[in-house]
């Protein structure tokens, strides 16, 4: 029973991984920008949620109304800079690495390196749980993570598959020149996409802050898991990202129960390395942007 519980909880937490990975995956797949600064946006989103809840008594879920537009603008602005200076692929990795360091240092200067956590009375979600039959208990935070992931990542997938905007993006991912020749305005497309990625970072940050303590260095700890999800899911493939997020969540849940929590990083990084070696194009071939 304990393994079933662990696998289920892992699958739900996997939703958070997918939320964090979605923006990274789409900008990489469509705009060819590997935006490490995305982790910085998630971090800032998490701290803003903490700040709004602790200082002004917002309900944690409502903070998204403020943070998502803010980070939409930040994400769009970032993309505007990348586009203007023609920073793509490898250079984007370097530039955004620098930007990430700046974001982490700014977070340290503003909120200090100490652990910050929303007080229990402000954050009812942290302690809540839903009981299923047979002794299975699911914490509210993980249910929220999964719900938002399905809504946003799954919704993003549907938008990319079915709408005109989505078709434009897919065309653009496959061949920029031809897409441009057919009248697809890549600048505007990029801004919208960068903005949406930023907004998704706000949601991911909010979800993370619900259930965890914050310290600036956590941004590094996301690296491994999130890149594993991006690559396993296939760069630019949102449905794949969602599935990979759940898969990675289940894997780490099971590993930490069957062996010990401290072996979790090994399992994860082994998963990334195997993913890179065996299927650098992702586990799920078709169905995505790229």
């Amino acid at each position, binding site marked *: 029973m304990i393994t079933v519980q662990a696998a289920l909880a892992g699958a739900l937490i996997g939703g958070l991984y997918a939320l964090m990975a979605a923006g990274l995956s789409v900008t990489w797949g469509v705009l060819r920008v590997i935006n490490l600064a995305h982790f910085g946006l998630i971090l800032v989103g998490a701290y803003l949620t903490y700040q709004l809840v602790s200082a002004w008594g917002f309900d944690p879920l409502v903070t998204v109304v403020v943070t998502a537009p803010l980070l939409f603008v930040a994400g769009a602005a970032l993309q505007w800079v990348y586009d203007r200076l023609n920073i793509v692929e490898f250079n984007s990795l370097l530039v955004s690495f*620098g930007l990430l360091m700046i974001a982490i*240092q700014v977070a340290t200067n503003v909120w200090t390196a100490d652990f910050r956590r929303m007080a229990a009375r402000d954050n009812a979600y942290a302690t809540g749980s839903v009981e299923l039959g047979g002794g299975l208990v699911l914490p509210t935070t993980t249910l929220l993570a999964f719900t938002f992931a399905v809504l946003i990542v799954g919704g993003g997938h549907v938008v990319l598959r079915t709408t005109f905007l989505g078709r434009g993006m897919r065309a653009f991912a496959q061949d920029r020149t031809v897409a441009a020749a057919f009248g697809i305005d890549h600048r505007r497309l990029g801004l919208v996409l960068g903005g949406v990625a930023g907004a998704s970072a706000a949601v991911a940050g909010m979800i993370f802050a619900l259930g965890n303590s914050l310290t600036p260095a956590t941004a590094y700890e996301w690296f491994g898991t999130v890149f594993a999800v991006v*690559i396993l899911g296939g760069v630019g493939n949102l449905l794949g990202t969602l599935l990979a997020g759940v898969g990675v969540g289940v894997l780490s849940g099971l590993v930490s129960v069957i062996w010990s929590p401290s072996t979790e990083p090994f399992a994860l*990084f082994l998963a990334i390395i195997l993913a*890179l070696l065996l299927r650098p194009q992702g586990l799920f071939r078709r169905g995505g942007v790229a």
Partner: protein
Amino acid sequence: MTVRTGLIGLAGAAAVLAVLVQFNAALGLPAYLIVLMVTILFWIAQATSWNLLSGFAGYFSFGQGAYVGVGAYSMAVLTGRNDVNFLISIPVGGLLGGLLALGVGAVAFRLRSLRGEIFALLTLAVPFILAAYARITHSIDGGQGTTIPLPGFPSWIADFQHLLFFLELAVAVVAVGVALAVHGSRFGRGLAAVHDAEDAAEVLGVPTFRYKMLAIVLGGAIGGMSGALYALQTGFVTVENVFGLTIPLFVIVMSVLGGRRHWLGPVIGAALIVVLEDRLAAFGLESWSSIILGALLAGLVVLAPEGLYQRLRTHPWIALTTFAVVLVGLSITGYWAEVDAILYAMLSAAVVAIVLDRFHRKPPKAAPPKAAPSKAAAPGEEAEPPEPLIPAQIAEPDGRVLVSCRDVVRDFGGVRALDKVSLEVSEGEIVGLVGPNGSGKTTLVNLLSGALAPTAGTIAIGGQQIAGMAAHRVAHTGVARTYQIPKPFASMSVRDNVAMAVMFGRRGASLAEARHRAEQHLATVHLAHLADAPPSALNLHQRQLLEMARAIAAEPLVLLLDEALAGLNPAEIDDAVAVIRRIHATGVSIILVEHLLRVLHHLATRIVVLDRGRLIAEGEPSAVLSDPAVVTAYLGRQRA
């Protein structure tokens, strides 16, 4: 500058520094300068270690922390916990760093897909795994950190800082010496070629896998040794300190700032960044240092990706003089503390170099005389350009079989690109390989050059089986190829592009000898007048010619030309055809992939037609081109 003079200079500089520090009390040098120098030397070793693979060969790594960590924990566990002499822990750290690098390289370089950003992300994972391992293993760390006691040292060393200085100096000298020797060697040229165009380097005969392995292992060993010193220097090792992302950020910023393609780049970058950091700390701005470094990295990648060294070397004496004048000036006035003076002197030298470079930018070095074909043939200059290479005997088609394919099959996933193709090419032939798009022509070229291995069947070049052989060894059996889209080595002149092929070709040569012979090959393709130009100054036609020059410089038995005429205008086609004939006249057999049937009709001695992976016709050109099956395949059913 040769490697030899470079090494002598390095040894001289190290000796001067050592003497200054040993007698610093008598000379009036304050002790904090020694502490600063210890830090600079540490980062010089680290940045140089990173630069061997990531700078020279272009395989960017975010995993430098792994080597520092392995070295630091060698010192922590051996000396800190088990009282082993620190002089043993340092080489152990180097050994373990080298072994770790060997493991990473063996996994990463086996796979061609692991390039660029994917390689960088893989290296990001390595320190994380090691950190997790160290955290849970109590005999290494267990999450508490490890203290290293002050070691004992002989009495001729004044104090612990002096000891550290001598150790750091030794490791830094080894690091820079290795980088300098690599940079000036055949190995270094090979790494630069890997950086510019890895596939092209491999088919020209550069053993890319071995070179990358050697570079990563050297880097790992140096990083490990220097990491062991880091533990000794800080006296306390924690997982977060060594395996975090600060170390990769520092080495990347230093190398990008200084310049990644030259051994001196990381040295300049390390010195400047450490002094800058020191001053930031002195002004109480530590919390800004990551922000400034991050912004510096982002700015540099955009504004000056080639680094300071490139700018400094155009006016080395002016920069050096500026440095000296500002330093002495500020010190004499006594207005600024010493380290400030050093920082301002460095910054002024850098600014002067950049500004001079901006305003004095010479037109690209050897301004290529654009209309040179006629000029090269001018009567007065006849003695000047070297003679095209014309062998004493023009090879007669004597029937010796050079290329022999038997039932070659190649699948890509579920798609069969080549289906039981059998083909022989004999000495002296020009075989035209035609077929509609997607018929398997380029796949066949890739198989013959060893870039791909056949799924089934055998391929022999000059009687030697090549299936499963690395492409650079296939090149040494006597195959050379050109690419449909030219892949020149962007950082080298046209002459050096060709010289690379001579150096790594079947016979091999020193760089000087190779450059000399390159002139002849450039003359063969009528490109001698552009020998000093960078490849970026060439038009498409000239790039195609450069591809050919590079291919024949490897002195092949068989030359594979993959659509060498694509995209050329009629005059350029005539010119290229003449070049191909000249190459053929030197005794090289040619396999020519081409769509222009009219050209092939005149040029080829035999034509082979592929359609959907199968060989559907071969024989004398006019017979093949009127074969109904060929016409159907090429022009569609209605015309047949």
